[in-house]
């Protein structure tokens, strides 16, 4: 980190020198000599990278309305974009998966993996003046556990946290029910960031409209369905190693405009009415790439890619051969290229690249093969009828494909393409687009295929989708209805395995088993994409692809 900061100083110094020399006001011969002696790389840097300009307001159009700005209660990614600017975490996860200090300077894990002792920074204050200390950490995590908080996703993230002991003012020990390798990664997520205990007590269930954290920006106002404004926290000096600027941010304000209509959002960026806008659909990405006034920031999300789950509790998909036929007949490359025009990456595994334990060897493994698909269905005794649909014992081979509405990320179009692709091997796909996925899928389990994705920081995310103990659908199954004692064992072991290499191997086995047994069809990795005016510089991302504005500035 220190090295990086020095780089900045060098660049700034060089830029200044260059400007002085070029303008010819104070440039002596000696100065220009020094300039010539500078390494070529540094000179190019100095010429292209401008020094961050202080001040200015960054307008940033969001795609939907946040539900709440209380990190512990939010369940929407769009809320996290704003939450992330106001709140910090104990630790930070870098894109390579390693955990680095943030509000905690160091930590030690007990031998049994059941307690984590954190040393905290001593110079941190919440925006309302409340000091940040061990009590505050304990208050926050206990708050998430407290049912009265009505914590949403944060309750799942904090698991298996049990209690906290305040050792001294700046040392806190967190106790866990069971050991968990995912714990530190989860603590880095914005949804378990630290809120001011004073504010939480003062505002109660209205904290979401009056958020107070320790983050680089302070909350100013939230005009519902219109905009959220945050302003620079001038005291800020505890930035995570994800960003270069360790001090207060350069921007005076970030104004999040809420613009659900795609055309309005993108049009406003193009016309310069807002400086940046998020969630840019593929066809616009191609057009915007050619726009000389604009640039794109893109970051692939981590966790589980968009995956089609084949429901093994519905015949004939309990048969391996039937699932393998689907795997061989669905041409994922064609889908991803047609719909996303090369702007999304195709997924190969139950995990996305970049997530710890991702098994690269799966890439290129599954290839479309209609002959193989047909042969597999022949073996199962399904015979093509006059209408081209296969049948066995008078029963037609149909597939009930459920997807949600609205058509997020063109997922409904995937269903339509798969309907065509499976027609070729004699499967009649009935597509059901419903506004009520919760009832159709999660309550009634009424689907043969249903697709979903999850942003997450650790492969432990696999548990809630593939472990037989994770019951999310009806009363007794996970999303694919997958039950496999071996896979259960690997996932359980992966949670506690201390050796990183061994842990990696465990998750590789899980991923391979899931693909070999054709439990799922992974489709695409979602890239979080921002279109911005070229004057906007250095928006960075955390490991889950949430934007960070610490380094961002507007070139004048």
């Amino acid at each position, binding site marked *: 980190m220190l090295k990086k900061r020095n780089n900045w100083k060098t660049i700034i110094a060089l830029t200044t020198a260059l400007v002085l020399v070029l303008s010819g006001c104070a440039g002596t011969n000696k100065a220009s000599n020094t300039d010539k002696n500078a390494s070529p790389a540094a000179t190019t840097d100095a010429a292209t990278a401008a020094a961050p300009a202080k001040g200015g307001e960054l307008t940033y159009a969001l795609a939907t309305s946040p539900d709440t700005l209380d990190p512990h209660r939010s369940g929407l990614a769009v809320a996290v974009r704003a939450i992330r600017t106001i709140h910090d975490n104990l630790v930070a996860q870098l894109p390579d998966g390693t955990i680095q200090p943030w509000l905690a300077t160091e930590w030690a894990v007990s031998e049994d993996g059941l307690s984590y002792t954190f040393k905290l920074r001593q110079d941190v204050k919440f925006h309302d003046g409340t000091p940040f200390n061990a009590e505050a950490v304990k208050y926050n995590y206990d708050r998430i556990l407290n049912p009265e908080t009505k914590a949403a996703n944060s309750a799942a993230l904090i698991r298996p946290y049990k209690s906290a002991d305040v050792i001294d003012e700046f040392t806190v020990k967190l106790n866990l029910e069971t050991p968990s390798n995912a714990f530190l990664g989860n603590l880095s997520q914005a949804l378990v960031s630290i809120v001011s205990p004073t504010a939480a007590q003062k505002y109660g269930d209205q904290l979401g409209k009056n958020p107070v954290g320790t983050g680089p920006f302070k909350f100013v106002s939230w005009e519902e369905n219109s905009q959220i404004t945050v302003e620079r926290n001038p005291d800020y000096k505890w930035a995570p190693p994800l960003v270069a600027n360790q001090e207060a941010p350069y921007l005076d304000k970030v104004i999040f405009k809420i613009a659900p209509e795609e055309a309005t959002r993108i049009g406003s960026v193009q*016309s310069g009415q807002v400086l940046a806008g998020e969630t840019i659909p593929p066809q616009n990405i191609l057009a915007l790439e050619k726009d000389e006034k604009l640039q794109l920031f893109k970051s692939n999300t981590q966790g589980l890619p968009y995956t089609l789950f084949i429901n093994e509790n519905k015949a004939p998909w309990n048969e391996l051969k039937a699932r393998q036929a689907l795997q061989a007949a669905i041409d994922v490359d064609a889908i991803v290229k047609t719909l996303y025009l090369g702007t999304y990456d195709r997924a190969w595994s139950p995990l996305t690249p970049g997530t710890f334990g991702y098994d690269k060897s799966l890439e290129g493994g599954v290839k479309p093969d209609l002959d193989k698909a047909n042969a597999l269905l022949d073996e199962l005794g399904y015979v093509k009828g006059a209408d081209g649909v296969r049948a066995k014992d008078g029963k037609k081979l149909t597939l009930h494909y459920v997807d949600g509405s609205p058509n997020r990320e063109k997922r409904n179009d995937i269903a339509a393409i798969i309907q065509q692709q499976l027609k070729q091997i004699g499967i009649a796909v009935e597509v059901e687009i419903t506004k009520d996925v919760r009832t159709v899928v999660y309550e009634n389990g009424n689907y043969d295929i249903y697709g979903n994705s999850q942003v997450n920081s650790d492969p432990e995310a696999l548990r809630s989708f593939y472990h037989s103990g994770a019951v999310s659908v009806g009363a007794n199954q996970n999303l694919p209805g997958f039950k496999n004692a071996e896979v259960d064992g690997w996932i359980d072991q992966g949670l506690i395995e201390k050796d990183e290499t061994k842990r990696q191997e465990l998750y590789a086995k899980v991923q391979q088993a899931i693909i070999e047994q054709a439990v799922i069809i992974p489709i695409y990795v979602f890239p979080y994409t921002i279109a911005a005016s070229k004057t906007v510089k250095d928006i960075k991302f955390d490991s889950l692809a949430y934007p960070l504005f610490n380094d961002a500035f507007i070139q004048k």
Partner: protein
Amino acid sequence: MLKTISIRLFTSLLVILGSLVLVFVIVYLLPGDPVLSMVDPSTVTPEVLASLRAQLGVDRPLYEQFGSYVSKVLQGDFGKSIVNDEPVLPKIITHLPATLALTAASCFIAAVVGIWLGVLSAIHRDRWIDITARVVGLFGISMPTFWSGILLILIFSITLDWFPAMGSEGWKTLVLPAVGLGIVGAGFVVRLVRNSMLEVINEPFIVTLRAKGVAEKLVMYRHALRNALIPALTMIGVLSGELLAGTVVIETVFSRQGIGRVISDALMAKDLPVVQGVVFFSAIMYVIINLIVDLSYRMIDPRVRRSQ
């Protein structure tokens, strides 16, 4: 007159009460479990579900839920949002002005543009001005607002940069959405005014006026239009309801604040208390507007007064 007004007031009250029942029942009949929509179904425990159900009161019988809902509403308590615990009434009150402004502005545009074009088109029947007005009217009626809204943004905001594409601060942000919504209403009004003008123009009293040598402009605007306006006025009452509903789409397209946005978000999130509150408020507004239209109709047209 007083009697008529009090009867209308009484029936309006009945309508509002009826809407309260309807709102409650419809929301109750909506598919899907509101409690499940509050939690992450892949991680929630049955105990948490049960305690949430008890908190919301959805585990009690329907009549009990309704009873407690009505008694609370009468005390001005519309409950709290399921999503973020925000009280519903203040939320509606925050968003209502923007929607009212939009509805009023688009109603105004619909009335002015619609009546003006309608009269022109009747006077110049079957000439180019008439044909243009009719095409514009058809266009207004058949264009979906989300499309015309985007078109307006493309032309007047992104290309010409005359008006902002989003937001709800200041009069400038009101122009495009009001036009987008107003075109629809204008489409209806043009057709109606044109037809009733054509009817009135052929009435004997117009012939008499012309025979007496009254100036043609006076004949048209003072005598014919006044008679032709009566059906248009009724239409505007109905239209205000249409426009109110249209705000759901147009507020989303233009990223405006307003109760249209509130209810569409609430429906998506199955935020029942908010849905109930907004629908109930919309019903009240609709009833009030129609009450006003109804009464003014009686004032303008002597025949209606006499017939009672």
